[in-house]
C-alpha cells in the first residue's frame, strides 16, 4: 500500500525532492555568502591591523632614530647649543640665541622625525632671538 501511495504521488514526490534540493542549494549559497563576507571582513581587518602595526613599529620604533638625534648637535653652531644630555631613550637639548632661520631648522627637524615630544619650550629672549628647551624620547 505504501508503495502504491508512493507511486500515486510520485510526481509530487519528485517535485518535492527537487524543491528541497533547490532550497538546500539556496541556503548553501546564502550561508556561504554570509560566511565569506564575515571571513573576508575578519581577514581585511587582520591585514589592515598587521599593516598598521608594521607601519607604527617602523615609525615609532625605528632603529635609525639614534643617529637622527645626533643631528641636533650639529644643526646650529656649537656656541648656541647650551646643553645636550642623552639618557637611554630620552634626550634633553637646550639652545640659546637662535635666530628665526635656525629656529625653523630645529623645528623642522623635530617635525620630520618620529621623536615623541615630551616638552618643547620656545621663548623670545631678544628681538629675533629665541631660547629653546626640548625633551624628546623614542
Amino acid at each position, binding site marked *: *500500500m505504501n508503495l*502504491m*501511495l508512493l*507511486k*500515486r*504521488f*510520485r*510526481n*509530487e514526490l*519528485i*517535485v518535492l525532492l*527537487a*524543491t528541497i*534540493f*533547490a532550497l*538546500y*542549494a*539556496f541556503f*548553501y*549559497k546564502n550561508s*556561504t*555568502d554570509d560566511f*565569506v563576507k564575515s*571571513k*573576508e571582513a575578519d*581577514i*581585511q581587518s*587582520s*591585514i589592515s*591591523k*598587521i*599593516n*598598521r*602595526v*608594521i607601519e*607604527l*613599529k617602523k*615609525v*615609532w*620604533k625605528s632603529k635609525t632614530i639614534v643617529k637622527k638625534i645626533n643631528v641636533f648637535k650639529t644643526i646650529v653652531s656649537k656656541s648656541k647649543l647650551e646643553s645636550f644630555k642623552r639618557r637611554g631613550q630620552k634626550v634633553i637639548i637646550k639652545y640659546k640665541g637662535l635666530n628665526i632661520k635656525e629656529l625653523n631648522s630645529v*623645528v623642522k627637524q*623635530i*617635525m620630520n622625525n*618620529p621623536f*615623541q*615630544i*615630551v*616638552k*618643547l*619650550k*620656545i*621663548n*623670545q629672549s631678544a628681538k629675533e632671538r*629665541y631660547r629653546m628647551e626640548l625633551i624628546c624620547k623614542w
Partner: protein
Amino acid sequence: MGKSNKKILVHKDMQSLTTNENIDIIITPQFYTFLKEELGVKFAYQAKQIAPSLFDDYLDSSKEYQFFVYKCKEYWCFFAYDIDEISSFLEEKGVKKYQIGKIFFSQELSNSLDEAISLGDDTSLKSIDNIVTILPKRLMGVEYIYKDLDLKNISLNHGVSISSSFGSLIPLKQTIGMTILLTILGIIYIAEGNRIKGSISDDEQKEELLLSKNHKLSSSRIRESILAQYEPIDSVERVKRDTIEDISKLLSIKAHLKELNIDDKKISALIEADTATINQIIKNANKKNLITKKEGGKLVRVERVL
C-alpha cells in the same frame, strides 16, 4: 526481469474487481477509436503531432481525448481514448486510478483473436482483417465456441504509462518542467556558492604572506598589544605636529612668535602682532579649531588641548 502487473481486459460487461495490487489494463474498442494510416513520417512524435487532425471526423467534440501512436509494419496505428471515461469506468469496477500501471490496446491482440472471445452475454471480441473489433454475439451464431484467451502468456509492447498522472495533483509534463527548473536553479546556487567560497582564498593568501614575513605578529593579542602601545603615541604626536604647522601658518612679518610651549596636556603659542593682524590671526585660528585668547592689545594666545 522486472515483475509485471497482472493484465485485465477491460470491456463494458466486465465483472467488478477486488484487488489492492497494481494492474495493467487492455482496453477493448469500446474505449478507443482506432485508425491505421500510411504516412510519410519517420518518428512517432511526428505522427502523434498530426493525430488530432486525423481523428477530426470520428470523435465526440464534447470529450477530451488523448492520443497514442505506434508503428505497425508499414502503417502507423493511431488510438484516441478518453482517459477520464476509462478511469471512471474502472473506479466503478473497484479499481482505483493509482492502481492502473499501463494501458494497452486490444488491437495488439489481433494475432491472438482470429477466433472470437466472449465479453459477457452480448458481445464478443474478434480480429477482422487484422483489426480487433467488438461483435454482437447474435452475429456469431448460437453454436459458436468462443476461445479462452490467457493474457498471462501474451506479450504486449505498446502501452501508455499514465499511472503517475492519474492520482497526481501535478501532471507529468509540469513535473518534468518544474524538476528541471528547480534542479538547474539548485546547480546554479551551488556553483555560485562554490565560486564565492573560492573568492576568499586570495585574501587568505595575502594574510598568510604578510604573516610569513612578520611571524611575530601572527598572534592577534600581540598585534592588539602593539597597537594599544603605539596608536595613542601616533595620534598625539600627529596632533602636536599638525598644531605646530597650523601655528606657523599664523605667523608672518607682522606676527611674531613670542613663545611656544608643548607638554603632555596642551600646545600653546603666544603671538605678537598689531590689532588688525591679531583679528585676522584669531579668525584663521578659529577656522582651524584652535582656541584663541587675547592677552593685552598686541598679544594673542593660541592653544590646542591634547
